């Protein structure tokens, strides 16, 4: 597989954002542990916050701010990408199904998808309501 041209500053920004996002998510998970029969508040909160922030950052960077080479890698790809997680949601759903919590699993999946979508949408709309500042 051919790799794209690599910019060292961009990679450093992604790494730094990834460090911060992962630490925030893992700290949150330690604060609010959960079992298979309960709502995974830590994952849910991290995912909603990350979706809101990503919608805000990317819309602002693409449509409101002058081009920048490291802000999106740091804040979007790094921070929001690492703060949110797909694998943990799937493991939580698997454990809910595995322990017979069907209603919880369906509710959690639906709330996560609808919530994430709405968060991106609301953040995008909020950025677009502000006037262009150049």
């Amino acid at each position, binding site marked *: 597989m051919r790799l794209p041209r690599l910019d060292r500053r961009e990679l450093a920004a992604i790494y730094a954002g990834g460090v911060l996002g992962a630490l925030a998510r893992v700290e949150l998970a330690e604060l609010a542990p959960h079992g298979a029969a309960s709502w995974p508040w830590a994952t849910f909160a991290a995912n909603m916050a990350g979706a809101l922030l990503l919608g805000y950052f990317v819309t602002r960077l693409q449509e409101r701010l002058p081009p920048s080479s490291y802000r999106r890698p740091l804040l979007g790809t790094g921070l929001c990408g690492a703060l949110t997680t797909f694998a943990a949601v799937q*493991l939580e759903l698997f454990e809910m199904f595995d322990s017979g919590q069907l209603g919880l699993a369906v509710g959690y999946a639906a709330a996560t998808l609808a919530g994430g979508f709405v968060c991106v949408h609301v953040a995008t709309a909020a950025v677009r309501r502000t006037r262009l500042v150049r």
Partner: protein
Amino acid sequence: MNAAVWIAVAMLGGVGALARFLFDAALAERAAGPFPVGTLAVNLSGAAALGLLAGAALHGATLTIVAGGGLGSYTTFSTWMFESQRLGEAGRATLLWLNVGLSLLAGLAALTLGHWLGAVL
């Protein structure tokens, strides 16, 4: 979390984000199109890997570091939702539902497969 675990989570968190970026970029170069195939591939592979670790009954600090730090950072929910929302904005409703449904169902299948493999191995 003690200091060693904290540092390991931080380091693997950065590595996970970088791996996601590189894998996604390499795939996007080959499959240029409106469907976000890079994010899908990253998330499915990460879900399978987490299933493998959970199936192998990895626990404690090792799980926190590898799953929480590495795989949590490698896979992403925000980009999945962002790309879905942008597909909707572009009027590509079919691709939007495909992206949401396929990721969710194939992700669960990938994790289940990984879990089974991890328990067997």
